[in-house]
């Protein structure tokens, strides 16, 4: 079996964080953070394949962390899922403006989250494939 893909998850609510961890840990290597700043540090440290960020967090919120990660050339390519409790259109808009790739509304279904994660990895794979094909041409 190939190396597990790495995912960084950030949420200030311990039980939500653990729920995310328990949902993903069977298939992925999960790293946790409890606010935006920690999340950025963790991302720089482990270079994950995916990041899941809660919106409302102390210190630095998920949208700000998302922006910074996307600004950084080394981490810009990492897909980000925004986790929002509000599910409001404004939040979703702000999420995409910050460069998020997808969003999941809380409360989430672990199965749906897993599907979403896999879907994103599929997309990334497809993209890579296309880019390589282009190179070869």
């Amino acid at each position, binding site marked *: 079996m190939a190396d597990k893909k790495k995912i960084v998850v950030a949420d200030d*609510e*311990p039980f939500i964080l653990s729920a995310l961890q328990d949902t993903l840990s069977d298939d992925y290597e999960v790293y946790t953070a409890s606010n935006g700043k920690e999340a950025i540090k963790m991302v720089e440290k482990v270079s994950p394949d995916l990041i899941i960020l809660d919106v409302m967090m102390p*210190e630095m919120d998920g949208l700000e962390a998302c922006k910074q990660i996307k600004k950084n050339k080394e981490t810009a390519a990492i897909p980000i899922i925004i986790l929002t409790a509000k599910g409001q259109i404004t939040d979703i808009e702000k999420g995409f403006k910050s460069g998020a790739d997808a969003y999941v509304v809380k409360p989430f279904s672990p199965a749906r989250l897993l599907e979403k994660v896999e879907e994103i990895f599929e997309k990334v794979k497809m993209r890579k494939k296309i880019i390589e094909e282009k190179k070869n041409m």
Partner: protein
Amino acid sequence: MAEVKEITNNKGIDYTNVFNIKVWEGVQYKFAKVLGIAIKVISEDGKINTQESNFNEFYRILTSTEKGKEICNPKNLEINDETRFIRLYGDCDYYCAKTYFYGRKFNILVGIREKKYDEKIVKELSEKAEVDYDKLLAAYKTLTVFPEEKLINLADLIVDLFNMVIELSVQEYITQLANKQKEEEIAKMSALMEASIVINSTRNLKQLLKIIMQSAEKVMQAEASSVFLIDSEKNELYFEVATGPKEEEVKKIRLKMGEGVAGWVAYTGESLLVPDVSKDPRFAKRVDEQTHFITRSIICVPLKVRNQTIGVVQVLNKIGGGTFTKTEIKFLEALASQAAIAIENTNLYEHLEERAEQLNSELKEAMVNLSIEKGRIESILQSMEDAVLAVDKEKKIVITNRVAERLFNVKTEEAIGQSIENYLKTKEFIDNFNIVLETKNITKSEIKVNISGKEHVLAAVFAPITDEKRQIQGSVAVFRDITDIKELDKMKSEFLNMVSHELRTPLTPIQAYSELMMIKKMDEQKVKSYAAIINKETQRLGALIGDLLDLSRIESGKGLSLSLEEVDFGELIRTVYETFKSASEKHKIILTIPEKSEKILLDRNKMIQVLTNLLSNAVKYSPDGGNIYISMEEKEDRIYVSVKDEGMGISKEDLPHIFEKFYRAKTEQVKKIGGTGIGLPIVKYILELHNGGIDVQSEYGKGSTFTFYIPKKINL
């Protein structure tokens, strides 16, 4: 006006000789000079037409040419009974007062310029009179402007003056006559003069007629005299005034039209002299029989007003048995014409008075109604909670009220008549007024304004004011300050956002773990740990829903009820501590409580709610961790508990508000943490129910200490 036959032809007396025109012109001159007005007297027959007296520069320039003189002294003025105002030249209105002498009407013209100057008229006048326009205009501008009512007063004064001069003239004439003519002649002149004066001074008709008749009796040396008036409805004559020995009896009698000498004269409108009644079949004996008076001779003449016979005047029995002469008919006719004028005047005055009274009472009523209406509107305006501003077509303020004064910093007395643009600087106000004035449509808008340094939101309605012809006359605007409502709206929606967030936060792990338990294979230990999380988060959800229910109970006024039991407060704190101690790895909770404490009466669950709330806040608002100190001490009859954290603290701006419902800290850092803003208000409420209280001390960035107390003995 009855046509008065020339006395002069018969008597050789010309009233134009009697009236000393030179004396009058002298008086007129002086008055015109002193008062700065113009005076002119014209008799109805045009025989007397005084030189206009006018001493202003304007008149002097105007009459400096022949043409100007012509303009200022018109020969044939058309003046009739109804004429009250007449224009002689330019735009000077002459008030036309009337007086009577010798049965002649005199029109006394008193002129004052009572309008503001009109250059166009002066231009025309200067061309007609062939005088210099600029000079005339300059003089014209210096003319005094009098209001109409003053003019009439002035005219009355001139009329009095004129009468005085006439009186003097007549007396002078009498003196002249006394030297050459018979006494009889003098008496007649005096009687006429007297009648003339009485007519112009008395408004009581009966008294007036009586005076006239008495002087007739005296002059003609008659035993009795009477005035009959025609009752046109019954076609009868009745005694209006009677003099002589049988005065009272005579008054009860009515004559048929055509009955007796009086009836005949009334019917034919011709004067009649009956030297011996016993020989004249027209004489009605009935009257004599009823009054026990013996009539021998009669002179009877008609009383005519505007050529219509309204009654008769008769004189009976020459004293000493002589007979009346034909010249005495003329004298009586002259007297009758004076009497007719008196009657006409009286009727006119009565009519005018009646009309004036009616108008006056109507006006009074209208004024009262108007002032009631005005008062009503005024009190509505002033007691309104909304600001009202009304403007006219030119956007000048016409109405403001108390609230508007406060809201726009306007003083009504100063603002009325001022342009609205001087007071409302925000463009939207003016735009809205413009739209309404142009389109006549009602507009509504929310306007943000800066009022004494603070932004306010005003809900505004602008409506057109139109007259009965639907023409726009202005616009009225009503403003309501909805700043607080807006703020409340904002707080409400923020609260709903927070509540939905707060509800979803525990719901997320509940849904996630329950689903994980369904889809994953796991050992019993894992199942138990998942179930424990679900349980904990369910409790959290329950507590939150409990808070919301508490809040709605407090909000609806139902309040919360306490179920009291004896509780060891130290024990209670320990219980809550147990549930918290392992909740966070970053925080260390340090207890300082006495080993033993008295049991006190309180609501156990609600007090747990208080402690839980304060502790979870301490954890929540110190995200970087730190110590949390819980201490309890008994002081006198109270128990004091404090919860201290080393977290972010509370800013000075937020500190006074944290116990207010829905209040959420304004600092960005706190906003990110979330919360409903109802925890602390409920804590405060519960403590107050226990006769206790809560206070907070905090330094931003260093942490907060919440200290509450409850009495050991609760008084409910």
